[in-house]
């Protein structure tokens, strides 16, 4: 009887947790769906206008769709699908930089979605600047699949559940004398450890390292934070940067685009040379 009660308590507790996950923020899901549906309709209509060579009408509709998506995001309803669709809408309006920006945001929330990756690759192939972002080795991606397969919310939720399961197992061993749970709790502890490490890495990667995308057509990277400094090199729309420092209206960035090296080929110096200052207005944080 007592065991049953404890088990029921845990089940109810977990149900409470999962149930509360579906609670919406400031906009209810129904309202959000309504807006999302309208925006999608608008986008599809624009697509048809585009096919009919009515470019002006098509552009208007794409703009309208983008506004609807932005409105939805502005009301704290965050979804990978909205970011992706917004990226598409911007791309259709010829704003590849903003498109990449929103695809990157969508990618964080939808790490398993192949469409997002396909669109990013397509856009990147058309950009003026050649980028050399370091790719993760495939073997690492397979071995740490959960890291690349799950987004930060999913990993966090999984970690919490794992933590609760681990606690429950420990409790059952102590109170209910379930000795057979010993091995299971060891496995749970190992999983929890791996998940906590992954969560830490992911949180560091997403919150401590700030990245941005150049949204202006072209932009000069200067030696210092101000117009008075000489321009170092020029990058174009859609180029991705790592923001290292912020000063007034300037960001100190490390650019991922390949820069023609005027010095020797040593990698360390090359890394240093790729850094420079860029006006805030021309970059948007991912």
């Amino acid at each position, binding site marked *: 009887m007592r065991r049953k009660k404890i088990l029921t308590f845990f089940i109810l507790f977990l149900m409470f947790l999962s149930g509360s996950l579906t609670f919406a923020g400031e906009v209810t899901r129904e309202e959000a769906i309504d807006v999302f549906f309208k925006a999608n309709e608008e986008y599809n209509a624009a697509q048809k206008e585009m096919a009919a060579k009515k470019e002006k009408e098509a552009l208007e509709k794409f703009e309208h769709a983008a506004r609807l998506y932005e409105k939805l995001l502005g009301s704290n309803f965050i979804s990978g699908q909205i970011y992706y669709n917004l990226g598409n809408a911007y791309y259709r309006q010829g704003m590849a930089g903003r498109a990449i920006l929103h695809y990157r945001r969508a990618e964080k*929330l939808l790490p398993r979605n192949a469409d997002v990756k396909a669109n990013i690759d397509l856009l990147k192939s058309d950009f003026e600047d050649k980028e050399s972002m370091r790719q993760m080795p495939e073997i690492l991606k397979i071995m740490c699949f959960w890291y690349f397969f799950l987004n930060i919310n999913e990993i966090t939720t999984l970690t919490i559940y794992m933590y609760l399961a681990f606690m429950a197992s420990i409790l059952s061993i102590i109170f209910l004398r379930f000795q057979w749970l010993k091995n299971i709790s060891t496995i749970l502890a190992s999983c929890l450890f791996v998940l906590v490490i992954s969560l830490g890495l992911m949180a560091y990667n997403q919150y401590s390292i700030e990245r941005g995308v150049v949204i202006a057509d072209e932009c000069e990277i200067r030696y210092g934070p101000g117009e008075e400094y000489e321009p170092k090199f020029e990058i174009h729309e859609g180029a991705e940067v790592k923001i290292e420092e912020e000063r007034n209206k300037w960001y100190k960035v490390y650019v991922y685009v390949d820069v023609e090296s005027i010095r020797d080929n040593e990698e360390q110096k090359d890394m240093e040379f790729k850094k420079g200052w860029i006006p805030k207005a021309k970059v948007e944080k991912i």
Partner: protein
Amino acid sequence: MQRKKNTEQHNLALKRIGKKMIKKFYTIIILTFLFVNNLTAVHADEIELTASVDKTTVELGSYVRFTIGVHGAFDTDQPQLPPLESFSLGYGPTVSTQTKIVNNVVYVYRGFSYGLIAKEKGKFTIGPITLEYKGKTYKSNPVNVEVVERTPFDGKIDKRKGKDIDISKKIFVELSTDKKEAYIYEQIIRSFKLYFQKGLPIDDLEYVPASTKSFLVEKLGDERRYEEVRDGILYSVIELRTALFPVVSGNIEIPPAKFKCNILIRQQYRRNWDPFDNSLFDEFLGRNEYRYPVERSTNSLKLKITPLPVSGKPEGFAGAVGKFTMDVYAKPTEVKVGDPITLSINISGKGNIQTIGEPTLAPEGSEGFEFYPAEVNTTITDKEEGIKGEKLFSKVIEPQHENIKATPAISFSFFDPVLEKYQTITSKPIPIMVEQSDMEIPIYLSLEGVEKTKAQARILTKDILPIMSDLYSFKNQGVVIYKRPLFMALIFFAPILFIFSCVYLQRHRELLQTDVSYARKRRAPSQMKKQLSNTRQLIQHGNPPEFYAALAKTLTDYIANKTDLPPASITLENVSDTLGNRGVSSGTVEKLKQCLESCDHGRFSARHHPKDQLEDTFKTAENVIKLLEKQL
């Protein structure tokens, strides 16, 4: 419900297992029956009687072991010894039995051993022994024994060997062939036999076969083991057989084969009190066994190998010597021009099947065919009585026009050493039906040019993928449970709560074991509930005095446990003081007292108590307990 289901399943499983067990049991019975039947079949066969001695020369006054062996039956009478004037019976008979199963044939043997003491010098013949079995009389071989004068003991004993062993007759080897003269390539069976006296413990057997440079050699089957009586002594025989195919002619000598082994002799040792004599340890370690090395070599053999006669040698003869037959099949027999027909030519028989050459196709009837080299597959079917086997030649032929009506005839020639002449077997042509081929379909033998016709699909336009519109998975990913402070607090406080509850429970357990008063107080409610339920059952049984007694006991026990007093000290008189001191309201005490009074009354009055009254009292008691539960 679930339990019932489980029980049914369990029963079903048991039934199934039971059925399986019964099936197994029947199978074992049937097999045993068949086996026993087989054995009786062996029993029913004729028997064989042998007589043997352990040595043919014996000193006067010594023992000679005389053994009568009955082969083939266990159920014979005991054979009777013939009247022996020159010997006296020392002991016996000791009976030994033996059963062997070789290639599903059961051999049974029963030996009757007698110890005979030689009384007179001279040459004597023991037996033959006769035995009647199933109406037939069987006779053994006679055994010759020579009794000699006793040699005086010279007092010298080889310490290591114990005593001299005359082993020349105990172990010997023989090499023989089934024929002394043979044709070249003819099969000769050579056998090497090791004779050792039955029961002689030998080990580390090593056989060095005779060199056979001028022969092709093929081992025949496994070694054979049997027993043989020679010169009156029973020997165990190990026979190794080899098929030899001479490849050169002339007088060929097979050099002697060598054989080495060790005879295990258990040494006699003196038990003296020599402290350095470690024979006891030797015995324990098995070192007391002495290995007497024996080496034997056979005589050499001379063979006359005759070359095959030149006269009468057929044209297609390819060196096959022996006795062979040939079967020929063709498949398919209805083909189109250019289609393959497989001729399967199977040569089988006795001889060196490995070296047989391909049979020849008759030139007449071969025109109009295209031939391909034959695939050969050799199988040795028997290795027991010489090499027997078959060689299958699969030859592919292709008819080139539709006028062909049959396959060519096939002939095979060999030399028969028994008939001493060449033989030729010719198969008849096999009728076939050849049709005109269909229109020729060009066959591309190489993939040349294929790449030219294939090309990658050209990308017409590069465009982004369409928008996502799946509403089912559409949700607010910005709102997550872990971002709620209350939840996070719960998560962080959970371990602390866990620890506190652990400590509390541990303390509770300890107190239950160490503090009697605490334990009584904690266990009072559960004990009371149990007693109450037992008391309730007494209402149904219609035994009011017992019911009232039980109810009063429940109440007093409960109060005693709660107040940590002996149950006997809770009486109607002092209960108000006891409970009043512990803060129980006077109303509750009054109710309790009333309840206890009615219990006393009920216990000792002879009046009839209706069931309703009992239930009322019970309910009152329950209420009183509830009140006490709150106040104590």
